């Protein structure tokens, strides 16, 4: 079975790797690159815990092969931090508004929220629900997740003023 050489920019850092075709992008990020923030939930595209940004748009890392990420730009939840490693604005809002309970869905929620806020810093409740519609929280803590995203949106608007 032939391996493939790929190049991808992950959280602004260029990477080169040799990957087996059957390796998922999710396993690649976690096991080969060592970025464990992207969580492995259902591994068949239902739960959204493994969401990452691929060239700026949210996708599920379990539903893509690592070899397909060749030439792509990927942002994982680690990439949402400030440059000094402290939590970014969105992550901070999740901490402050208690937007997590067990924390398993949180990386996926953050990625979906990041994608939403990047194009719309004044989302309606319906838009927020739509944006995180593909992310399951089995603690069912959706209300505080939504409030966290609303808090982040408010801070983004204040910062833009």
């Amino acid at each position: 079975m032939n391996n493939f050489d790929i190049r991808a920019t992950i959280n602004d850092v260029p990477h080169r790797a040799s990957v087996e075709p059957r390796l998922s992008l999710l396993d690649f990020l976690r096991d080969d690159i060592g970025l464990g923030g992207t969580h492995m939930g259902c591994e068949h595209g239902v739960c959204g815990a493994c969401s990452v940004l691929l060239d700026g748009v949210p996708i599920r890392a379990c539903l893509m092969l690592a070899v397909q990420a060749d030439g792509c730009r990927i942002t994982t939840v680690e990439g949402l931090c400030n440059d000094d490693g402290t939590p970014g604005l969105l992550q901070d809002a999740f901490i402050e508004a208690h937007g997590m309970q067990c924390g398993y869905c949180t990386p996926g929620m953050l990625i979906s929220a990041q994608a939403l806020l990047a194009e719309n810093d004044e989302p309606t409740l319906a838009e927020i629900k739509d944006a995180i519609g593909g992310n399951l929280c089995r603690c069912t803590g959706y209300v505080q997740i939504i409030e966290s995203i609303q808090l982040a949106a408010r801070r983004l608007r204040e910062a833009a003023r």
Partner: protein
Amino acid sequence: MKPAKFEYLRAESIDQVVQALDQGDGETIVLAGGQTLMPMLAMRLARPAMVVDINHVAELSGVEILNEVEGDGELVIMACTRQAEALASPLIQEHAPLLSKAIAFVGHRQTRNRGTVGGSLAHADPASEIPLAALALDAWVSLRSVAGTRRLPLADYFHGPMMTARAENEILLSLHIPRAPGTRGAGFHEVSERRGDFAVVAAAAVIGVDERGVCDHAALAIGGADGRPRRIGAVEDKLRGQRLDSVAIAGQLSEIGAALAPGADQHAGAAYRLRVARVLAERALLEALAEAGP
């Protein structure tokens, strides 16, 4: 939950894809958006010897109007066009608004950003939205093999649950929707457990009304209530030629059940599906009628 080993080919052209399929002896599978194939690989429901990735075949992506002559022609959606692109496409919104409405129900942002129009048609889940809308729009598919290209109306393309007329050595190339007068209205309604889930039952409708206010075009299709999406010709025939209003529509829906053979699963029983099919058909037809203008 990890795929079995397979060979991987990143195709750069349609010719390369059909050659690989032709030499694959049924063990070669096309990878488009991967939103269905990847779970099937992970669960080892699919164990292909070779996966042909078509995501880099530029000619397999895009939306355009072809053979345009005095308003005629067709809207062509290439197979590897992402559902997110199709949803945002002004051409589809203008010429096939039913498809835009249907795609809004397909999955979630994460899956629409990868999932493709052709992938939904190739997979042919009996409850999925894109096949249903395309069927209601009298669409065709193009299938290509090394021997050439053939076109099939969708009525002949769907055979059963996840079964189509596509041969193992063919790739689904494109979806072709005949251009219709801009005065037609479109309606799409479904019942699902949560928004973005597979529909339990879905209904798609297109209505055209002439300058006298008489219905000159009626299409009604139901998904999730049979092994494949179904056109309800008996209802369409009764609606055509009538002045339609909510009473007229409600009065013509009794024959829906005769055209459907719903199954039962953990989501819903057969009787429920039939009942919901009728309610959704009425909503879809009313929505289409409200949009239709002379």
